[in-house]
């Protein structure tokens, strides 16, 4: 099985290695959390600030949301790990179908 623990003679060393890996991962997660908070703040400020027009603000905050969600998916939900090929395929297929639906509702419902 691909996800079993690494075969090491000494379980002690093994666990130290794993602890180190997972602390490292935790650090990435803290960084991405900080970035997510930062992106949220930027989005709220962009809306609160009167100097930008809607033509700038709307695409800008949507971009920020997309970036934030990518952090959420790849770091918090571990999509960056191995064994997430099928989840990624189906998630992106869902995103595609959803995007087409949104596009249609924004463009061809006008009455």
């Amino acid at each position, binding site marked *: 099985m691909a996800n079993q623990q690494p075969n090491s003679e000494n379980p002690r060393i093994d666990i130290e290695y794993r602890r180190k890996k997972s602390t490292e991962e935790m650090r990435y997660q803290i960084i991405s959390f900080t970035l997510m908070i930062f992106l949220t703040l930027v989005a709220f400020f962009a809306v609160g600030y009167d100097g930008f027009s809607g033509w700038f603000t709307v695409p800008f905050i949507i971009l920020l949301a997309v970036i934030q969600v990518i952090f959420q998916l790849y770091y918090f939900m571990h999509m960056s790990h191995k064994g997430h090929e099928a989840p990624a395929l189906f998630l992106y297929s*869902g995103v595609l179908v959803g995007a087409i639906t949104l596009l*249609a*509702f924004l463009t061809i*419902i006008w009455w």
Partner: protein
Amino acid sequence: MSTYAQKQGFGATIWDYLTTVDHKKIAILYLIAGGFFFIVGGLEAMFIRIQLAVPNNDFVSAGLYNEILTMHGTTMIFLAAMPLIFAFMNAVMPLQIGARDVAFPFLNSLGFWLFFFGGVFLNLSWFLGGAPDAGWTSYASLSIASEGHGVDFYALGLQISGAGTLIGGINFLVTIINMRAPGMTYMRMPLFTWSTFVVSALILFAFPPLTVGLFLLIFDRMFGGNFFDHTMGGNTIIWEHMFWIFGHPEVYILILPAFGIFSEIFATFSRKRLFGYSSMVFATVLIGFLGFMVWAHHMFTTGLGPIANSIFAVATMAIAVPTGIKIFNWMFTMWGGSIKFTTPMLWAVAFIPSFVAGGVTGVMLAVAAADYQYHDTYFVVAHFHYVIVGGVVFALFAGAHFYWPKMFGTMLNEFLGKITFWLFLIGFHLTFFIQHFLGLMGMQRRIVSFLPGQGFETGNLISTVGAFFMAVATIILLINIIMTTVKNERVGNDPWGDGRTLEWALPSPPPFYNFKQLPLVRGLDAYWLEKMEGKKGMTPAEPLGDIHMPNNSFIPFVISLGLFVAAFGAMYRAETAWGIPVLIIGLLITLGSMAMRSIKDDHGYHIHKEDLMDDDDNKGVKA
């Protein structure tokens, strides 16, 4: 050990089926329930044809006619075709990939019971103040205006059974991705398994829009919402989009498994490898993908504008390409093969011209400008009956004959099978071919009667006569089933003699654990490969060992029952005092049984190696 196969009393058998999590038994449940609704939907079709047999007929009133035609469409699509397809998927797919069970046996059972209770709920409308009468598409302006509870039955019933279908789809996907036998790569999977895979993905993405659409309808009708009420700022077109974003993939959900069944049948009875296997897989995936890009071709006349209409028209026509690839591959499979015209093969051969006729009218309808002429006429009725009956129903009949021995261990009578086939084929073309012309002559869809002297008399009469042929054919099939069951002549592993895929390497019906030892798959048509090398069965991929099995459970039945009860409460909430309490009780039943499932651990049980070795049906091979 034979304790697993003891003779049971009638009550014990019923209890076994109520609690079963075995995919083969769930398949039988789907077959029975789907078959029942198929007959109900068929009776409704007969009433429609009797009403339209002669001009100015008053066999049924106009209001009742609306209910009948709505229920005919809804029943046939959601409660007959889908579950019957699920029956074959459940019965065959896990065997074809060499799995002992599906990934989520408990959810598999839950999926069935949700569908069943949803279907029963919908049909109870006949006895509780009238069935839905806004057409199977239930377009919002009409369904909001519809009086009584008919459309509420539609929305709530489909919501419940739709949840079951979604669960089933996820279950099949995980099974195929995670549980294939050693050596069963994706490109060695039989075509029926491939189509199950693609269809399950379509279910996963197409049913949520239906869920949302039905919620919007429920909110508008029962909870004072304004989604479709233009006086409050709502927009009725939203329902049409939501319905067809679901509805168009839905027709591919129906037809792709049919393609899968026919692919198996063509290869088996031509005794040749399926021609162009990889292009068949590619075409299946492509049809599934394009299925999401074309929904608005149902809405050309709503005024989407020329640009949207053109895009959707072109996308629709593009689907003809992968479909054409499939048609040619089937013909090339037969070409040069040593063909045996068994009953399933007859259906398969007849399917090609029938379905192509439906495909051609489909391309005609895809021409947006021309569609303004065809829209809502009998031309459309003829078109979709050619693809759905000529494709899906033919496949269901073919599959029933083909897989009957695998599901029940006994062969349907070939002679009666061929009579069914010929009567149905003739009846089908009599009924629907003429409807193309009725439509072109201006006969509208969904009308309750027509006037004399407009040239519709002969066509409609012929159409009705054809419907009776199909009814007789179905009755003969039922007689065949009863006779076969009573005679009960047992057959061996490979009763057709030409089985190619793994399911035919197993006894008929297979033992409840399917494979004593998981098979080693060495190529496409795994069983055929072994037979050609003179071997009797599959080479095992593992030594004989304990087999882990899930426990039976009554909880899926109770969860579904709770929603069924809650739906009544939701519907009568406004006008009766007991509505709200019933709604709450129903939800409590559901949530309580879900909590029980999660609180009580269920680790399943093991069949021990020694018991397996004693099983004398097939001796375990020591690897």
